[in-house]
């Protein structure tokens, strides 16, 4: 089975906010396989879309493959211990098992798409925090239906339940 149905049901019938808290906790504590510093990459002039290539056109923003890391790190900063780990993953031919920080639990029944939000001019930092100051990605912004709807109202986007939940 793909999901822990039993657990999901227990959560569902308890407090609605519990999953958010649980997610925040997981996100904040996320122990990434590599201490990837977002801030230093942003400082070097990389755009979010350079690595999260789906954010402007697809549903999922996506994580870069290890080959993408190696486009630069085959030459750059090879001596750093964290980069060494990247090289090790690349040499083994396996993807870096990043821990996902932001996600909607399947019990929220949300079909979120990045593309329309990006095209509506919502900046990445609105939902993901200021990554110029963060090192390893953390769950800094809490997403609730209230925060989604506030923005949808301001931007005159659809407030129909079925726009997101189906």
């Amino acid at each position: 089975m793909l999901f822990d149905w039993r657990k999901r049901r227990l959560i569902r019938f308890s407090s609605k906010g519990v999953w958010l808290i649980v997610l925040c906790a997981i996100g904040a504590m996320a122990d990434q396989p590599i201490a990837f510093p977002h801030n230093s990459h942003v400082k070097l002039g990389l755009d979010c879309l350079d690595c999260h290539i789906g954010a402007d056109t697809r549903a999922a923003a996506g994580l870069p493959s290890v080959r993408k890391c190696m486009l630069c790190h085959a030459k750059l900063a090879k001596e750093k211990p964290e980069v060494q780990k990247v090289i090790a993953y690349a040499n083994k031919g396996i993807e870096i098992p990043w821990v996902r920080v932001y996600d909607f639990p399947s019990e929220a029944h949300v079909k979120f798409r990045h593309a329309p939000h990006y095209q509506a001019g919502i900046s990445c930092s609105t939902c993901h925090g200021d990554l110029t100051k963060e090192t390893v990605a953390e769950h800094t912004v809490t997403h609730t239906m209230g925060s989604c709807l506030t923005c949808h109202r301001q931007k005159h986007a659809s407030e129909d339940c079925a726009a997101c939940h189906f």
Partner: protein
Amino acid sequence: MNQSNQTQHRWGMAIDSDRCTGCQACVAACHAENNLPLSDAESAARGRAVHWIRVDRYYEGEFPDIRVKYMPVLCQHCDEAPCEPVCPVYATYKNPEGLNVQVYNRCVGTRYCANNCPYSVRFFNWFDPVWPSPLDLQHNPDVSIRMAGVMEKCTFCIQRINRAEREAKEEKRPLADGEVQPACVQSCPAEAMVFGDLNDPESKVSRLAESGRSTRLLEELGTQPKVFYLQRAT
């Protein structure tokens, strides 16, 4: 509901019962598209089978001069839906495009809606759904997997409607007639089912709905269904 920046559609369907051969392709397609759990003889006998669309059979005449009429029955997306006012938590409502929508998050499982539906097209999840391997690997990611304790029903494949509308918007063009096809319509080999915008008088479904062959199921109840059944005018 602020939808003023969009063209308002009013989705409807026409089903030609003279064309339907009762092949059940629509039922299979619906199951695959909408992550419906499978049912067996035992669950069906207990009234727990879930089919968002079913093919009803009607026999006309006496054996051996018998004629079978098939009628695919799905949610009729009634304009005056009997399921909506009985929901204590507003989990089912009419969306701006005329779809009768079920919000799984809101549903608390009173089952009033299913009891009040004259077409018996609403289904309750008595258990968490289970699929025999490898069917558990073929879920449609665009559709939720409903948990135990909530109602579910035909959505007119709202994920396909949303996708077509999104693509049309990105390409800055109006949605063409016939561009949105729910899984059942797409799979019908006899092309007995037509889906489209009832607000567009030129759409195929509007013309069929206004043809003399059109009837609606249990119309006398005043539910104003948006599924039109076409049959030989007698």
